[in-house]
């Protein structure tokens, strides 16, 4: 078994707002192994982005870690990220874990040229040698198939969406992080650009051997790049397994429903099935399985207790009381 680099233990994250407490992440246990691609998939409000931002402690001001630990294993030591203070975090972000956010345009300062943004980042981490940063930036920009001389003197608005995404990916590699978190890296990009970004991420992984976490609502990104997939629903992981297990042998009714609801283009025409209802309100959660109101396999026990993840195959975990009845896509 590969070595684990990140271990999330029983993590709870909440947001407080006027209506009450939004339980965005509820009791997540998840390991990330060295050199693997892990996809977090789920719909809006499933807690996948909250989980990602909690890992590098960039939750919005209304959000906080209520309980649990995020253990990072690097340089022969173990660190609990959830206990870090601001100074520790500054040392830690970018160098150990970097994140590429969803909206490529909003991640830049619109009035600074790309070079200034890159240099600022380096400077904040104590690297002040302009020549060194410039060389590294140019080689990274070239690596992501951009024309470095042109890009480095451009303002963000002068670049297309795909180019901005490539610049962000290049910047995230600036300080050679061990873990890269990418939030919806291909959403809102054109198909041909999406393909290009996917190929780029594949190359980066092969060349640099980083561990990557992809956050996406898009099953096809997980199908392209993931080694393992965690499916989230209402703040919890409901199924976790290898990409083959999740796509070809799903055991949770929600995973099964998602896969049956997505059309494919080049595979033959097939009938699709939709999941009735809509996701629950994360402020007033009912007891029991959170998917039960939408589930066709529901029994009375499902409404009483919330099922925990159990191992149903090698490294394949499902949180469902009735997983035995759901096999081989039923």
């Amino acid at each position, binding site marked *: 078994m590969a070595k684990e680099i990140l271990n999330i233990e029983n993590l709870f994250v909440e947001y407080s707002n006027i209506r009450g407490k939004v339980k965005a992440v509820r009791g997540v246990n998840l390991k990330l192994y060295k050199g693997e691609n892990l996809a977090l998939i789920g719909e809006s409000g499933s807690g996948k982005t909250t989980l990602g931002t909690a890992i590098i402690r960039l939750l919005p001001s209304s959000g906080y870690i209520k309980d649990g630990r995020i253990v990072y294993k690097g340089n022969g030591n173990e660190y609990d990220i959830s206990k870090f203070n601001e100074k520790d975090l500054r040392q830690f972000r970018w160098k150990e874990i970097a994140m590429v956010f969803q909206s490529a345009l909003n991640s830049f300062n619109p009035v600074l040229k790309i070079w200034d943004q890159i240099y600022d980042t380096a400077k904040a981490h104590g690297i002040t040698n302009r020549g060194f940063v410039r060389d590294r930036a140019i080689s990274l920009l070239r690596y992501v198939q951009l024309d470095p001389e042109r890009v480095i003197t451009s303002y963000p608005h002068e670049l297309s969406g795909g180019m901005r995404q490539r610049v962000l990916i290049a910047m995230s590699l600036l300080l050679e992080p061990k873990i890269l978190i990418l939030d919806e890296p291909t959403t809102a990009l054109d198909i*041909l650009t999406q393909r290009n970004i996917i190929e780029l991420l594949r190359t980066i992984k092969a060349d640099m051997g980083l561990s990557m976490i992809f956050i996406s609502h898009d099953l096809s990104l997980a199908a392209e790049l993931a080694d393992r997939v965690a499916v989230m629903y209402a703040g919890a992981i409901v199924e976790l397994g290898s990409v083959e297990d999740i796509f070809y042998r799903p055991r949770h009714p929600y995973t099964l429903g998602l896969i049956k609801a997505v059309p494919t283009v080049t595979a033959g025409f097939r009938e*699709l099935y939709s999941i009735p209802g*809509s996701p629950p309100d994360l402020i007033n959660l009912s007891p029991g399985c959170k998917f039960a109101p939408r589930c066709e396999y529901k029994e009375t026990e499902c409404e009483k207790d919330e099922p925990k993840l159990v191992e149903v195959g090698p490294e394949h975990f499902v949180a469902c009381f009735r997983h035995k009845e759901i096999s081989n896509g039923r």
Partner: protein
Amino acid sequence: MEDRAIIQLDHVSKSFTVRSGIFGGRKSMQVIGNLSLSIQKGEVLCLVGESGCGKTTTGKLIVGLIKPTSGRILFEGQDIWSMNKDEFKNYRKAVQIIHQDPYSSLNPVHRIYNILSAPLFRHGIVKTRDEAEEKVLELLDRVDLTPPRDFIYKYPHQLSGGQRQRVAIARSLTLNPRFIVADEAVSMLDVSIRLSIIELLRRLKEEMNVTFLFITHDLAMAKYFGWEGRIAVMYLGRIVEIGPTPRVIENPLHPYTKALLMAIPEADPQVTRSKKPMQLRSLDIPSLLNLPPGCTFNPRCPFWIEGTCDREVPDMYEPEKDHYVSCFLFRGK
């Protein structure tokens, strides 16, 4: 064939004026170039293309929200911009649009009742509040917002994204339309909700015999919704390929369509990881302000013929029955 057409576009072009820089002069940007298209009664036509290709503009031109710079748009054979007032009102009743974003297409300070009853009063379909309420309840029931009494006096923010899109669909049905433009009607919705909206649209099509122009960037959705109809592929304001959906998907002809199908990520690991994407000559889409001469795809096309593709604009060729392609590779075939 011609008399069955409900909507026809006859050499339609649309340009917008843009300013370049604060002190720069005005420039004309052609978004739609010489587009001809005929949509038959009862069919589903899917218009697919990437962002900025002009598909939304085409939808807006068809429902009469914007006027073409040149060319004609015909509704049942009549030019919509030379109709008299009554004719235009009839056309506006018959042709409706569902917008992409259910968060911005519904007025946040109006209740569902007001949103859905306004067109009913406006077109004199109902006279009293009781009549309007009855009709609105019926519409909500039709789009599966049940029980309708739970929804009629709510505000849009009290509904989920999927429910809002159902209200937007109900609004498009208020005047018993015969033609609906659905502009990315499911793109903003979650995966699990998307399909139920598609099924709703499909059921309405059967029940009300509505003709659909389904605009999307999602080829898989187009394939699923429009399997029995046609697909038109748009690139930089021109239709490059059009034909029966199964033919376009299984036997794509235009290099751009091929590139899209070979590139599109799919929700099946074995299928998607065995794709061999086409190597394009350039990753960048040319600017609409500075379109390349000849075929607009030529600077990216790996099959381009120097001296032809970069000089002349290809016609529409029909290499197989009802399947048209605008590419010199098919000239004379």
